[in-house]
């Protein structure tokens, strides 16, 4: 690179990053602990805050496994079978990425709300979805729907079915072949997809705000708690909660970074004698269309 431009470009690039990302995020940590660690701790251990934490955790524990099973299932279907509507299935799975989360929340209300399509049926059976826990789970699951598929599907397509067929000829049932051959080969991309899904579910805001009614102590997730804290002039609570989420984000980043390195290394070692491998799958660390966290 032309030495004349090297330093100026570097300064501009790093400066932009510092102003836009580093300093703002750093300031969150600063503000959280501005009045001491105890104050921050107290702010996130109020009954409302603790409830928000538990609620968020519970949502993750339900939504993520559901999406994972769904994601693996869809990937298997799309990778193994060719059928007319395949592109449509793929598009619909990706759809949540193109939709504003507020719209996702609204859409769910229109179906499961009191005046929604299933409103009467749900009321008759005493099932509450909107303004209640199930609705939060559904909203979180919807916005995070594509991530597992996006990660697992390309890997399944690249591997092909030869290994599974070989396993079959050796006497394995389809379940055994799946367990012993398919699953280990998608292990890494699956873990990655699950991480992204978890991060997304944790950080969802817009959809949950619409669907839950944000009732403190009842239907507030951690992200809602943060917003509420700001509105209620409780900045320390907000920033402390934000720190929790930021730390999780940093963990996700480490996974992201490690995965990036892993893919690069795999690419390098692929140029050996393996005759069937022709192309490296482009690093899909950012193969997810939209942010893993909510928007």
């Amino acid at each position: 690179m032309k030495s004349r431009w090297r330093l100026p470009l570097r300064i501009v690039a790093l400066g932009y990053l510092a102003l836009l990302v580093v300093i703002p995020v750093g300031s969150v940590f600063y503000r959280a602990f501005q009045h001491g660690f105890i104050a921050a701790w107290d702010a996130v251990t109020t009954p409302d805050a603790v409830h928000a934490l538990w609620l968020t955790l519970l949502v993750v524990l339900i939504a993520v496994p559901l999406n994972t099973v769904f994601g693996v299932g869809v990937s298997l279907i799309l990778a193994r079978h060719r059928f007319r509507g395949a592109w449509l299935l793929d598009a619909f799975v990706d759809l949540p990425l193109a939709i504003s989360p507020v719209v996702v929340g609204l859409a769910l209300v229109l179906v499961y709300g009191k005046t929604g399509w299933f409103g009467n049926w749900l009321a008759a059976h005493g099932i509450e979805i909107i303004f209640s826990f199930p609705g939060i789970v559904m909203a979180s699951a919807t916005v995070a729907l594509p991530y597992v598929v996006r990660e697992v599907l390309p890997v399944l397509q690249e591997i092909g079915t030869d290994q599974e067929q070989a396993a079959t000829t050796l006497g394995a049932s389809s379940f055994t072949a799946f367990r012993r051959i398919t699953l280990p080969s998608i292990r890494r991309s699956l873990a990655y997809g699950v991480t992204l899904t978890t991060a997304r579910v944790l950080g969802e805001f817009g959809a949950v705000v619409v669907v839950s009614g944000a009732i403190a102590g009842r239907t507030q997730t951690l992200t809602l708690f943060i917003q509420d804290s700001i509105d209620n002039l409780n900045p320390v609570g907000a920033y402390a909660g934000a720190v929790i989420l930021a730390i999780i984000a940093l963990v996700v980043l480490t996974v992201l970074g490690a995965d990036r390195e892993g893919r690069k290394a795999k690419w390098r070692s692929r140029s050996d004698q393996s005759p069937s491998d022709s192309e490296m799958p482009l690093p899909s660390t950012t193969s997810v269309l939209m942010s893993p966290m909510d928007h």
Partner: protein
Amino acid sequence: MRRSLRGALRPAAKATGPTLIVTYLSLLVLLPIAAILSKSFENGLGSFWTAVTQPEARAALKLTLICSLLVAAFNSVAGLVIAWVLVRDDFPGKRVVSAVIDLPFALPTIVAGLTLLSLYGPNSPFGINVADARIGIVFALAFVTLPFSVRSVQPVLAELDRETEDAAASLGASSSVVLRRVILPSVAPAMLAGAGLAFARAIGEFGSVVLISGNLPFKTEVASSWIYSLSQSDQLSAAAAVSTVLILIALIVLGAIGIVRRRFNVGEAV
């Protein structure tokens, strides 16, 4: 015993798998989207049009589209510069820089909004207050779309054949000419794709904007905020109508990107 039970279940299992999947998809995506579309036109085409062209709706949409366009364009250039530095420059801590670029990706948007509020809002240590101002929206959108702009261009830059640039230089081209005529044309499709992704992302953004913008109607209210307040005041049909517009715009942009990708053979890095 176990084996025969499993054997008996298998045909049933073969059918239930796809059925469950389609059911899950329907409950979460297909039905809700259909409901949005249906509700938009619930009272006829006329009321759809009214809801969308209502002054506050128009203002919100206009603000959203303009800000998103600005951010997409600006971050394309910023993304190119940053990607360039990542690919062509070498300095300690490059990995950290890479992580920083992905940070807006990994961070919940409400936290993103909080960070911007803390620094460039009312209690700003810099004395810069962009809260309740349109520029705050631009900041927030620039923050969340940064990774798209960088990561869409980065792999293309990395794969650029240096030999082409060397050949141009040996033929007498100055570095600015090399930039203009050799490098930019190669990265342009990827930049375009990245800008499109950033745009589609930005128009739907809610969490990061909601804190810093103040959501002042006609001033700093973006489309997603307007939809939110419509839904809170039970004007669901109007909310659905504006939502449909947003969905349509996003789909058109994403479809266009798909075409650009196929036409110029850009891979999917983002």
